[in-house]
């Protein structure tokens, strides 16, 4: 249904861009406060438009599956009348369930993060620049999610990369921030090289960039053939989709390209919050969902999507257990949750015994999780920023005892942790439950098991963070602890969707978020024991975390011992048991399972990247070494070149 808001959906893109220009050129230097208010106002307008579009669309969701808000021809690379084939890139806005959902989420989070930043950045001398760049980032992400075609998406995709480079390296006087931003930029661009090749391959065979066209069955038939692609004769559909997915692989920081994401924590916390909740890292998931009908016809691609996602979910969760930096815990948690979203898409393709068809539940569950995760992860980062602001340290062991001093933050954090831990009835429960259900229905038993286990693990490490940060005694002298209203407001607002968003949105996601393609229509089994099992996994994670970190055992123990002399030995014995238990789980499990994985991540995965860098530098050294300055040498090399030509031609 075309409405005023859909035809003028360009306003959503215009607003952040306007903020970027105005703040970057004029307001930023004069008054950062004016810049901030301007940004909040403009982003609110964008949010308003997004909400209006969403209401209009979802209330008539059965009439159409998409609307093109507007579309114009942009670059005509080749036209049929001259070169014999068409290659035209358009620019426009595609409004369909997933893009509208993302528009709402991104604009909402932009507004909140902008508000939060007013408090967070108030002592930073270059806050004006911050508000300008943050809007550029929002603009890129909004453009990415509303792209009508893959070329436009790639443009915004890279723009997201470039603006994240500027934001992560915002504090460029810190060398670690600079190298982190460079790493993020280069690693994601490495993946984008494959993405670009994939776009070129697919668009050459189909002569279109348009998502709607690409997702048609006819396109699949065009692509599903064997052709020479430079490195051998391969199936174009498989290779093309895998290449495109490689872009998402890097952007969503799936193993082993996840190396950039934990380092990206060097940016200001509002930046981490916006990057990790609803923007940059979700782009890969979004790309996979956007081209889902195309991807789903390649079994290999779907398997890669599922297993890469599941592995990352497990891997990152295990590492998160070992981290002590609050932002790094959240970063690995993000990776793990992204793994959930990704494998949920992958398991939509049921294994052959189950019919091999597409189960729309996996798709809608993935999008649902994108939505709920955006709320609670954004919130968690904002909380982390709040806490860091007070404690002036990222280490959770420097915190503790903040429960009384920061009541709002404490309650919000509890809600967020319950949500991410998948406890009924918080938001994360509904989406995670659906994801696990989808993998069970699809017959992916291994992934199902991983999903359940990681659910427990998630609850464990999140409550580890929660207990260590807020409970116990404060481990550091803190002066004038207070909760900045600008920073608290967004946290409290986000607590609402984190708490109840899942319950209210689940039906909408179920009905409206289905891939635009033929689907499995049979009723699939829906075991009633599953929610109970999932919740109990989460609860046992929480209990375990409480057992290790929640009780203030040493202080408690000594006071009890003083009070009850005769029972002292018993208590002490219990302590032996306690220590033994701690030894078995904490020391053995941590040291021999989690720590080696962490080591593998730091040394091997990062090592490969460093090795690549080293090899490139060595190559550079060779090139410079050969450049001797001797003309004789230059001429000899030229003769070699001549011989090469002779060899090739004859």
């Amino acid at each position: 249904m075309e409405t005023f808001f859909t035809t003028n959906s360009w306003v959503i893109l215009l607003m952040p861009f306007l903020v970027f220009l105005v703040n970057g050129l004029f307001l930023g230097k004069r008054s950062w406060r004016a810049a901030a208010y301007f940004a909040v106002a403009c982003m609110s307008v964008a949010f308003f438009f997004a909400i209006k579009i969403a209401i209009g669309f979802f209330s008539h969701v059965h009439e159409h599956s998409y609307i093109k808000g507007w579309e114009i021809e942009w670059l005509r690379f080749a036209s049929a009348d001259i070169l014999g084939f068409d290659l035209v890139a358009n620019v426009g806005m595609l409004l369909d369930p997933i893009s509208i959902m993302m528009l709402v989420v991104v604009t909402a989070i932009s507004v909140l993060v902008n508000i939060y930043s007013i408090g967070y950045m108030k002592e930073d001398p270059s806050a004006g620049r911050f508000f300008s760049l943050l809007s550029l980032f929002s603009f890129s992400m909004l453009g990415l999610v509303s792209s009508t075609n893959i070329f436009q998406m790639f443009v915004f995709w890279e723009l997201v990369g470039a603006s994240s480079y500027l934001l992560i390296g915002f504090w460029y006087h810190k060398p670690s921030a600079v190298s982190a931003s460079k790493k993020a930029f280069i690693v994601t661009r490495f993946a984008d090289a494959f993405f670009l090749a994939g776009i070129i391959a697919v668009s050459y065979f189909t002569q279109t960039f348009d998502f709607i066209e690409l997702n048609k069955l006819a396109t699949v038939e065009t692509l599903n053939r064997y052709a020479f692609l430079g490195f051998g004769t391969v199936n174009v559909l498989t290779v093309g989709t895998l290449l495109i997915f490689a872009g998402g692989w890097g952007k969503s920081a799936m193993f082993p390209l996840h190396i950039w994401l934990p380092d990206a924590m060097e940016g200001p916390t509002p930046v981490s919050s916006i990057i990790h909740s609803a923007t940059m890292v979700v782009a890969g998931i979004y790309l996979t969902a956007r081209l889902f009908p195309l991807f789903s016809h390649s079994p290999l691609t779907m398997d890669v999507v599922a297993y890469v996602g599941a592995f990352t979910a497990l891997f990152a969760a295990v590492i998160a257990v070992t981290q002590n930096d609050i932002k790094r815990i959240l970063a690995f948690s993000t990776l793990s949750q992204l793994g959930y979203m990704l494998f949920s898409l992958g398991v939509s393709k049921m294994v052959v015994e189950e019919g091999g068809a597409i189960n729309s539940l996996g798709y809608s569950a993935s999008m649902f999780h994108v939505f709920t995760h955006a709320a609670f992860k954004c919130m968690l980062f904002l909380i982390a920023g709040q806490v860091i602001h007070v404690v002036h340290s990222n280490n959770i062991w420097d915190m503790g005892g903040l429960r009384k001093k920061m009541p709002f933050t404490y309650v919000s954090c509890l809600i967020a942790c319950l949500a991410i831990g998948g406890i009924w009835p918080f938001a994360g429960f509904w989406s995670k439950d659906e994801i696990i259900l989808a993998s069970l229905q699809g017959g992916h038993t291994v992934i199902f098991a991983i999903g359940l286990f990681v659910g427990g693990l998630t609850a464990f490490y999140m409550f580890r963070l929660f207990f260590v940060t807020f409970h116990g005694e404060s481990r550091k002298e803190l002066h004038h602890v207070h909760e900045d209203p600008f920073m608290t407001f967004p946290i409290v607002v986000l607590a609402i969707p984190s708490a109840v968003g899942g319950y209210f949105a689940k039906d909408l996601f179920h009905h409206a978020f289905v891939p635009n393609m033929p689907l499995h229509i049979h009723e699939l089994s829906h075991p009633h024991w599953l929610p109970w099992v999932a919740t109990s996994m989460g609860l046992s994670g929480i209990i375990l975390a409480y057992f290790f970190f929640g009780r203030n055992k040493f202080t408690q123990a000594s006071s009890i011992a003083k009070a009850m002399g005769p029972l002292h030995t018993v208590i002490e014995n219990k302590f032996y048991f306690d220590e033994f238990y701690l030894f078995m789980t904490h020391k053995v499990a941590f040291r021999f399972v989690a720590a080696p994985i962490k080591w593998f991540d730091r040394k091997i995965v990062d090592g490969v990247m460093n090795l690549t860098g080293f090899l490139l530098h060595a190559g550079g050294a060779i090139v410079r070494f050969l450049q001797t300055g001797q003309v004789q040498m230059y001429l000899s090399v030229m003769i070699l070149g001549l011989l090469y030509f002779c060899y090739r031609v004859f």
Partner: protein
Amino acid sequence: MLTFVTPDMLLPILALLVLSIDLFIESKNKTAILFDTAAAGVLLIIVLLFNLPHDQEFYYLTNYKVDGLRLLFKEIFAISLFFTILLGKGYARKNGNWRGILKYDSEFIALLIFCAFGMFCVVSAQELITLFIGLELATIPMYFLTAYYKKDQSSLEGAMKYIIMGSLTSALVLLGYSFWYGAVGCLRYEAILSFVQTNPDNPMFLAGAIFVFAAVCFKLAMVPFHMWAPDVYQAAPTPVTAFLSVASKSTAIAFVITLLYGPLAPIRHVFTYPLGILACITMTVGNLGAMRQYELRRFMAYSSIAQAGYIMLALVGNGKMAVPSIIYYLFIYLATNFCLFFIISVIGQKRPEEFASLRGLAKQSPALAGILVLCLFSLAGIPPLAGFTGKFMLFASAAEGGFYGLVIFAALNSTVSLYYYLLLIKEAYINKPEEDLESLEITFTQSFSIAILTLAVVILGLIPWFSSIITKIVG
């Protein structure tokens, strides 16, 4: 009909005009007069070129062809000449550059204009003699211009290397031509074309072609014929380096295209693949070499070696998109490179043209630093800047022939290039200058040129009609 060759004829006249102004006019600011006259003249020529009909073919004295493709190339040459003159103006004034003042202004301008005239001849030639003489006319002035800092030993050394290797190249071209003449018995393109159509695998002709392509690879600085480039780029005055990296390279590309899509069209497939492989090696070596450089002109040499690799990759697909995509990219490459060289010229006024001199640029002139970032991002192919759309077309053209492996390789290469372009940004923004910096002076000419070129870098990739017009003309 003579209007088609008017721009070509005006070029030597303009050169003579500049020389005679120098002879007959006495004035305090003669330098400015000379450069302004030359720039105005070249601007006139550019306007003339753009106003010629691009959809017609015209033969002057049967052996000098003007059509849309050739006009586009001439526009590239003329525009680079225009900016080189403007760039040179900054170097000819007092305190214009750390290396010293450029003297003999009128001769400097005249040599550049003659050089551009040679380039015009290369694209319009319809027989091998004009092609050869045009190529020499486009090369020999560069020898002189490279040695323009006569007191600088390294400048002379670079020029010497250039002359020796350039002469070998000329010899190779002539050897190739004589093989061709031996095989065909005629020097005209038409005769060569009909000969190649009937004898596509004549060994003598192919042997000649090998020599010719080796020479072209030298001009393009393709690996392994590239080794002169870093030394010469470093030795030459910066305006000359800019002209070398843009116009000379475009001439070599024009040379390849006019041959491969002219007389050698029937045997094009024999050469495109070897050239494509060389292109991949070239971009790799260029990218590797550019890491850990500290001299800006040398860095630009490696960077443009890599860029030449990307450009030549487009030919490998052998497709219809190859020529439009290359020309499209050349325009973008021109804008980006000249913009960078103007920035180098600004910071090179009181400091050596080195990486370390960029330090503190973000503090001193945020606008200039921002433009630097834009240009480098464009060279690295970050959308939506022009460099990205250009590269996309080049890669798409290579993919047309099914060489996706090479496309992935090239795309990965541009990731590597991002690494060292970021190093420059790091110098400008992050590294602290060691001592207090003298303030930067930007002349009107410089700020004017930088403004126009920046606009081009941003807009050429965004405006929709630019690529379609080029496709329409040369498709």
